[in-house]
């Protein structure tokens, strides 16, 4: 853990709700039996921004979303969403939020249009205007051709888009997206990212949970990392990556006996202790641009033969290893 890591446990500095924020969470805790799902969580999401809540399965992401969407009551703490108290004004709050879940919550036996019309009517709209809004959303989400087909004939990506559309029926100012792309193929994932980006550009505030750093990176203005029910780090995606040591350079050596020489040559570029095994040298690099060229030049000068050299961005694993000392996949219990 680097010295500049800012932890969320800031003592008394954030004790009262922030009225200017679209989402403000203070001291939320929730246990299920012996399992402490959330421990004293504080968060603020500014209006019109996206907060990525990043963490492995079982970290508490979904629990937090369920609490903020009025589906679950916390054991302690307070929260305000869209200017409404989550605990005492749940009924009012439900008019102002949209929820799209990990498991596409649409009726498989209804058509896309029937699903959206039903949701609109349950928000209190008359049938005709609920239907009109449904048609508008189907157009926006590129589902017009499938509008009158039962959802069970949809692909995974189409279902997620419809689920997202259902969350937008009442044009809510605050959206909760719980792992919107988990389980989707890469193409559908990119499509869905485009859709979410459009929504955000139209001014919605979004709390997005994800297990993928690249997703948080692409969509979120700020990222909060959650592990074992605690927010362990918070910042912009770049800040977070700097904290975990920036990019990783991997050098495959022609001759594994040259590892020592390679490390010596690359040490000036290192942000942390290099690691080596079986002719593969891994280092966390300090700067952003020109890394590969500099590394190749240094290795060439030192007479080290290189088989392959790659630069990769830190993954969720790197974030977790750096912040918590354990890998993200170790736990699996949500």
């Amino acid at each position, binding site marked *: 853990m680097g010295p500049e890591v800012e932890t969320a446990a800031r003592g008394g500095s954030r004790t009262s709700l922030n009225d200017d924020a679209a989402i403000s969470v203070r001291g939320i805790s929730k246990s299920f039996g012996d399992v402490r799902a959330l421990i004293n969580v504080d968060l603020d999401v500014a209006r019109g921004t996206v907060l990525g809540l990043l963490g492995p399965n079982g970290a508490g992401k979904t629990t937090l979303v369920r609490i903020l969407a009025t*589906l679950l009551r916390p054991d302690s703490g307070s929260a305000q969403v869209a200017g409404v108290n989550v605990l005492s004004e749940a009924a009012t709050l439900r008019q102002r*939020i949209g929820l799209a*879940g990990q*498991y596409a*919550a649409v009726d498989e*036996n209804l058509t896309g249009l029937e699903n959206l019309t039903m949701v609109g*009517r*349950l928000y209190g709209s008359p049938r005709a205007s609920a239907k009109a809004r449904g048609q508008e959303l189907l157009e926006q989400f590129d589902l017009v051709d499938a509008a009158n087909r039962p959802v069970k004939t949809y692909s995974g990506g189409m279902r997620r888009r419809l689920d997202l559309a259902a969350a937008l029926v009442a044009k809510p100012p605050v959206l909760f997206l719980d792992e919107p792309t988990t389980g989707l193929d890469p193409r559908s994932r990119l499509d869905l990212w485009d859709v979410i980006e459009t929504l955000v550009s139209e001014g919605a505030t979004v709390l997005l949970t994800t297990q993928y750093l690249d997703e948080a990176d692409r969509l979120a203005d700020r990222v909060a990392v959650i592990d074992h029910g605690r927010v362990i780090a918070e910042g912009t995606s770049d800040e977070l990556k700097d904290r975990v040591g920036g990019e990783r350079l991997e050098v495959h050596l022609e001759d594994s006996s040259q590892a020592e020489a390679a490390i010596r040559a690359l040490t000036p570029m290192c942000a942390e202790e290099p690691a080596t095994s079986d002719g593969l040298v891994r280092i966390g690099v300090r700067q952003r641009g020109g890394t590969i060229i500099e590394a190749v030049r240094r290795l060439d000068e030192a007479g080290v033969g290189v088989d392959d050299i790659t630069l990769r961005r830190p993954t969720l694993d790197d974030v977790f290893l750096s912040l918590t000392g354990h890998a993200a996949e170790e736990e699996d219990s949500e």
Partner: protein
Amino acid sequence: MRRLVSDTLVVTERNLIRLPRAPELLLAFTIQPIMFVLLFRYVFGGAIRVPGGSYAEFLIPGIVVQNIAFGGFVTALGLNEDMQKGLIDRFRSLPMARAAVLAGRTSADIFTNGLSMTILVVTGLIIGFSFQTSAVHVIVGLVLALAFGYAFSWVFAFLGLLVKTPEAANSVGFIAVFPLTFISSAFVPAQSLPTPLRQFAEVNPFTIVVNELRWLWTGQPSPDHLWQAFAWVVFIILVFAPLAVARYRRTAGG
């Protein structure tokens, strides 16, 4: 209250629209009752002696009540599925009346039960059943059967929310309701049962409702009173509707 009614109607409509698109459920409503009628009339019927009238006349009211009590299965399975798939979460995040999801489910059962009962009665008329009473009696009988089915939909709503999987809902429901329907006067006269079973059958609400329906449709005298049958309907709803609503709130997380 107006919200409850309109939201309930929306959910009812949803449950009815999806029905023809799930053919396996539709089979349960249409083919299964016909099979039961034929089974009892032609396979077992010859061996069963009933007081006065034919076995077809004895059987149809019994099988209507049994079938309609099981109609609530759709509610148990449907609610369980909605829970698994996250639809209940969607509903709970909407500004809709809290009880509408359950009320809409059970109300949809009234329509499916009506369909099922129509098929049963028509089948019955073909195999020798006939109404022996006035139109008013027949209609009161239809209302009683539908009301009893509606009450059992709340029992099944509670069961469906109680268990974790649709398979469990299926077996728990079957184990709980099947003996109730058979240890009654639905298929054989209660007097023909061994003493302990007969004593159970005589206080079983199924027996009371079947006896009343038999009286309303065929004029066969009943040892019970019509008000007792309707009292059971009200009692079952008053017990199981609040239980189901409480369970719904808890299951979905408070």
